[in-house]
Protein backbone atom coordinates (compact mmCIF):
# COMPACT_ATOMS: atom_id res chain seq x y z
CA UNK A 1 0.00 0.00 0.00
CA UNK A 2 2.62 2.53 1.07
CA UNK A 3 4.78 1.42 -1.84
CA UNK A 4 2.09 2.19 -4.41
CA UNK A 5 1.36 5.55 -2.78
CA UNK A 6 5.06 6.35 -3.01
CA UNK A 7 5.17 5.58 -6.73
CA UNK A 8 1.97 7.54 -7.29
CA UNK A 9 3.47 10.61 -5.58
CA UNK A 10 6.73 10.18 -7.50
CA UNK A 11 4.95 10.00 -10.86
CA UNK A 12 2.70 12.92 -9.89
CA UNK A 13 5.73 15.05 -9.00
CA UNK A 14 7.66 14.25 -12.15
CA UNK A 15 4.72 14.66 -14.53
CA UNK A 16 3.70 18.01 -13.08
CA UNK A 17 7.35 19.14 -13.16
CA UNK A 18 7.42 18.28 -16.86
CA UNK A 19 4.23 20.32 -17.23
CA UNK A 20 5.95 23.27 -15.53
CA UNK A 21 8.76 23.44 -18.06
CA UNK A 22 6.84 22.42 -21.19
CA UNK A 23 3.58 24.36 -20.88
CA UNK A 24 3.05 27.38 -23.06
CA UNK A 25 0.84 29.35 -20.67
CA UNK A 26 2.68 30.85 -17.74
CA UNK A 27 -0.20 30.66 -15.29
CA UNK A 28 -0.71 26.95 -16.02
CA UNK A 29 2.98 26.44 -15.33
CA UNK A 30 2.53 28.12 -11.95
CA UNK A 31 -0.39 25.81 -11.09
CA UNK A 32 1.65 22.78 -12.18
CA UNK A 33 4.47 24.02 -9.95
CA UNK A 34 1.99 23.94 -7.06
CA UNK A 35 1.42 20.22 -7.66
CA UNK A 36 5.15 19.58 -7.99
CA UNK A 37 5.82 21.26 -4.66
CA UNK A 38 3.00 19.25 -3.07
CA UNK A 39 4.53 16.06 -4.45
CA UNK A 40 7.96 16.97 -3.11
CA UNK A 41 6.41 17.58 0.31
CA UNK A 42 4.89 14.09 0.06
CA UNK A 43 8.34 12.65 -0.70
CA UNK A 44 9.67 14.42 2.42
CA UNK A 45 6.97 12.66 4.46
CA UNK A 46 8.17 9.34 3.05
CA UNK A 47 11.71 10.33 4.11
CA UNK A 48 10.51 10.87 7.70
CA UNK A 49 11.12 14.62 7.44
CA UNK A 50 7.87 15.86 8.95
CA UNK A 51 9.15 19.32 9.84
CA UNK A 52 10.72 19.92 6.43
CA UNK A 53 7.48 18.80 4.76
CA UNK A 54 5.55 21.37 6.80
CA UNK A 55 8.07 24.09 5.99
CA UNK A 56 7.85 23.14 2.33
CA UNK A 57 4.08 23.62 2.39
CA UNK A 58 4.25 26.89 4.32
CA UNK A 59 7.20 28.59 2.65
CA UNK A 60 7.15 27.20 -0.88
CA UNK A 61 3.43 26.96 -1.53
CA UNK A 62 2.30 29.70 0.84
CA UNK A 63 5.11 32.12 0.07
CA UNK A 64 7.20 31.55 -3.03
CA UNK A 65 4.39 30.30 -5.26
CA UNK A 66 2.14 33.20 -4.29
CA UNK A 67 5.01 35.59 -5.07
CA UNK A 68 5.48 33.95 -8.46
CA UNK A 69 1.76 34.23 -9.27
CA UNK A 70 1.86 37.89 -8.22
CA UNK A 71 4.80 38.37 -10.57
CA UNK A 72 2.92 36.76 -13.46
CA UNK A 73 -0.18 38.87 -12.85
CA UNK A 74 1.83 42.10 -12.63
CA UNK A 75 3.88 41.54 -15.75
CA UNK A 76 1.60 39.75 -18.24
CA UNK A 77 -0.26 41.87 -20.72
CA UNK A 78 -3.58 40.16 -21.23
CA UNK A 79 -4.26 41.88 -24.52
CA UNK A 80 -0.85 41.32 -26.07
CA UNK A 81 -0.21 38.88 -28.85
CA UNK A 82 0.85 35.57 -27.38
CA UNK A 83 4.38 34.80 -28.41
CA UNK A 84 6.12 31.50 -28.08
CA UNK A 85 7.32 30.94 -24.54
CA UNK A 86 10.45 29.12 -25.56
CA UNK A 87 13.52 30.42 -27.29
CA UNK A 88 15.45 28.92 -30.16
CA UNK A 89 17.76 26.92 -27.90
CA UNK A 90 15.24 24.13 -27.39
CA UNK A 91 17.34 21.48 -29.11
CA UNK A 92 20.55 22.42 -27.32
CA UNK A 93 18.73 22.76 -24.00
CA UNK A 94 17.11 19.36 -24.38
CA UNK A 95 20.41 17.75 -25.32
CA UNK A 96 22.21 19.28 -22.33
CA UNK A 97 19.38 18.30 -19.95
CA UNK A 98 19.36 14.69 -21.19
CA UNK A 99 23.17 14.55 -21.02
CA UNK A 100 23.09 15.81 -17.41
CA UNK A 101 20.36 13.31 -16.54
CA UNK A 102 22.31 10.37 -17.94
CA UNK A 103 25.45 11.59 -16.16
CA UNK A 104 23.67 11.78 -12.79
CA UNK A 105 21.99 8.42 -13.42
CA UNK A 106 25.34 6.76 -14.10
CA UNK A 107 26.85 8.25 -10.94
CA UNK A 108 23.83 7.19 -8.87
CA UNK A 109 23.70 3.64 -10.18
CA UNK A 110 27.44 2.98 -10.13
CA UNK A 111 28.13 4.23 -6.61
CA UNK A 112 27.78 1.55 -3.91
CA UNK A 113 25.65 3.56 -1.49
CA UNK A 114 25.99 2.61 2.11
CA UNK A 115 22.46 2.50 3.51
CA UNK A 116 22.02 2.35 7.25
CA UNK A 117 19.05 0.75 8.95
CA UNK A 118 17.38 3.10 11.36
CA UNK A 119 14.11 3.20 13.17
CA UNK A 120 11.66 5.98 12.40
CA UNK A 121 11.82 8.79 14.97
CA UNK A 122 8.53 9.93 16.47
CA UNK A 123 9.22 13.54 15.50
CA UNK A 124 12.18 15.48 14.18
CA UNK A 125 11.05 18.91 15.37
CA UNK A 126 12.71 18.85 18.79
CA UNK A 127 16.04 17.60 17.48
CA UNK A 128 16.06 20.18 14.67
CA UNK A 129 15.36 22.93 17.20
CA UNK A 130 18.19 21.75 19.43
CA UNK A 131 20.59 21.59 16.48
CA UNK A 132 19.59 25.07 15.28
CA UNK A 133 20.38 26.60 18.64
CA UNK A 134 23.58 24.69 19.36
CA UNK A 135 25.64 23.29 16.50
CA UNK A 136 24.12 25.42 13.74
CA UNK A 137 23.58 28.68 15.63
CA UNK A 138 25.91 30.72 13.42
CA UNK A 139 24.45 29.50 10.07
CA UNK A 140 20.98 30.07 11.51
CA UNK A 141 21.77 33.68 12.40
CA UNK A 142 23.55 34.23 9.07
CA UNK A 143 20.57 32.94 7.07
CA UNK A 144 18.23 35.11 9.15
CA UNK A 145 20.30 38.19 8.36
CA UNK A 146 20.45 37.23 4.68
CA UNK A 147 16.68 36.84 4.53
CA UNK A 148 16.15 40.18 6.25
CA UNK A 149 18.55 41.89 3.85
CA UNK A 150 16.98 40.24 0.83
CA UNK A 151 13.46 41.24 1.87
CA UNK A 152 14.48 44.86 2.54
CA UNK A 153 16.33 44.89 -0.78
CA UNK A 154 13.28 43.54 -2.61
CA UNK A 155 11.05 46.16 -0.99
CA UNK A 156 13.48 48.95 -1.96
CA UNK A 157 13.84 47.64 -5.52
CA UNK A 158 10.15 47.32 -6.26
CA UNK A 159 9.07 50.61 -4.68
CA UNK A 160 7.70 53.31 -6.99
CA UNK A 161 10.22 56.02 -7.64
CA UNK A 162 9.05 59.51 -6.82
Amino acid at each position, binding site marked *: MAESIFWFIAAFTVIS*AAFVVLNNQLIYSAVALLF*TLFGVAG*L*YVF*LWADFIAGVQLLVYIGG*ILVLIIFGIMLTNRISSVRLSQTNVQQGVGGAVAIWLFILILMVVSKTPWNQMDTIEPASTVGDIGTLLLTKYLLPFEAISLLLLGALIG*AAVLSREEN
Partner: protein
Amino acid sequence: MDQLNNYLFIAAILFSLGVFGVMTRRNGIAVLMGVELILNAANINFIAFSRFGGMNLDGHIFGLIIIVLAAAEAAVALAIVINIYNNMNTINVDEASALKE
Protein backbone atom coordinates in the same frame (compact mmCIF):
# COMPACT_ATOMS: atom_id res chain seq x y z
CA MET B 1 10.22 3.57 -1.06
CA ASP B 2 12.98 2.15 1.15
CA GLN B 3 15.66 2.52 -1.48
CA LEU B 4 17.96 5.53 -1.67
CA ASN B 5 18.29 5.13 -5.45
CA ASN B 6 14.58 5.83 -6.04
CA TYR B 7 14.83 9.25 -4.43
CA LEU B 8 18.06 10.09 -6.21
CA PHE B 9 16.40 9.05 -9.47
CA ILE B 10 13.39 11.33 -8.89
CA ALA B 11 15.70 14.19 -7.91
CA ALA B 12 17.76 13.65 -11.08
CA ILE B 13 14.61 13.92 -13.22
CA LEU B 14 13.51 17.09 -11.42
CA PHE B 15 17.00 18.59 -11.79
CA SER B 16 17.19 17.86 -15.52
CA LEU B 17 13.71 19.30 -16.10
CA GLY B 18 14.73 22.41 -14.16
CA VAL B 19 17.89 22.83 -16.23
CA PHE B 20 15.83 22.42 -19.39
CA GLY B 21 13.38 25.08 -18.19
CA VAL B 22 16.14 27.53 -17.27
CA MET B 23 17.80 27.14 -20.65
CA THR B 24 14.80 27.22 -22.95
CA ARG B 25 12.26 29.57 -21.37
CA ARG B 26 12.06 33.15 -22.60
CA ASN B 27 10.00 34.56 -19.76
CA GLY B 28 11.99 35.62 -16.70
CA ILE B 29 9.42 34.22 -14.28
CA ALA B 30 9.41 30.86 -16.06
CA VAL B 31 13.21 30.78 -15.69
CA LEU B 32 12.66 31.37 -11.98
CA MET B 33 10.32 28.35 -11.85
CA GLY B 34 13.08 26.22 -13.38
CA VAL B 35 15.42 27.40 -10.63
CA GLU B 36 12.84 26.37 -8.03
CA LEU B 37 12.73 22.88 -9.54
CA ILE B 38 16.53 22.62 -9.33
CA LEU B 39 16.52 23.74 -5.67
CA ASN B 40 13.81 21.19 -4.86
CA ALA B 41 15.85 18.43 -6.49
CA ALA B 42 18.87 19.33 -4.38
CA ASN B 43 16.68 19.40 -1.30
CA ILE B 44 15.30 15.90 -1.97
CA ASN B 45 18.88 14.65 -2.20
CA PHE B 46 19.83 16.25 1.12
CA ILE B 47 16.83 14.82 2.94
CA ALA B 48 17.27 11.39 1.33
CA PHE B 49 20.92 11.16 2.29
CA SER B 50 19.98 12.28 5.78
CA ARG B 51 17.33 9.56 6.07
CA PHE B 52 19.48 6.73 4.69
CA GLY B 53 22.62 7.89 6.48
CA GLY B 54 21.27 6.89 9.84
CA MET B 55 18.65 9.65 10.28
CA ASN B 56 21.31 12.28 10.75
CA LEU B 57 19.48 15.60 11.10
CA ASP B 58 22.30 17.71 9.63
CA GLY B 59 20.75 17.17 6.20
CA HIS B 60 17.47 18.56 7.46
CA ILE B 61 19.22 21.76 8.56
CA PHE B 62 20.72 22.08 5.08
CA GLY B 63 17.27 21.57 3.61
CA LEU B 64 15.84 24.33 5.78
CA ILE B 65 18.63 26.70 4.76
CA ILE B 66 18.00 25.93 1.08
CA ILE B 67 14.28 26.67 1.50
CA VAL B 68 15.07 30.02 3.15
CA LEU B 69 17.56 30.84 0.38
CA ALA B 70 14.91 30.01 -2.21
CA ALA B 71 12.51 32.41 -0.51
CA ALA B 72 15.11 35.21 -0.50
CA GLU B 73 16.00 34.51 -4.12
CA ALA B 74 12.36 34.53 -5.25
CA ALA B 75 11.66 37.86 -3.49
CA VAL B 76 14.69 39.63 -4.99
CA ALA B 77 14.29 38.08 -8.44
CA LEU B 78 10.63 39.10 -8.66
CA ALA B 79 11.48 42.65 -7.60
CA ILE B 80 14.08 42.75 -10.38
CA VAL B 81 11.65 41.24 -12.90
CA ILE B 82 9.00 43.85 -12.09
CA ASN B 83 11.59 46.63 -12.42
CA ILE B 84 12.72 45.29 -15.80
CA TYR B 85 9.08 45.17 -16.90
CA ASN B 86 8.53 48.77 -15.85
CA ASN B 87 11.67 49.98 -17.62
CA MET B 88 11.69 47.89 -20.79
CA ASN B 89 8.07 46.73 -21.07
CA THR B 90 9.13 43.11 -21.48
CA ILE B 91 10.35 40.34 -19.23
CA ASN B 92 11.66 38.09 -21.96
CA VAL B 93 15.22 37.44 -20.93
CA ASP B 94 16.56 37.45 -24.49
CA GLU B 95 14.97 40.81 -25.27
CA ALA B 96 15.87 42.55 -22.02
CA SER B 97 19.59 42.20 -22.63
CA ALA B 98 20.63 45.87 -22.64
CA LEU B 99 22.57 46.97 -19.58
CA LYS B 100 21.23 50.53 -19.90
CA GLU B 101 18.52 52.24 -21.85
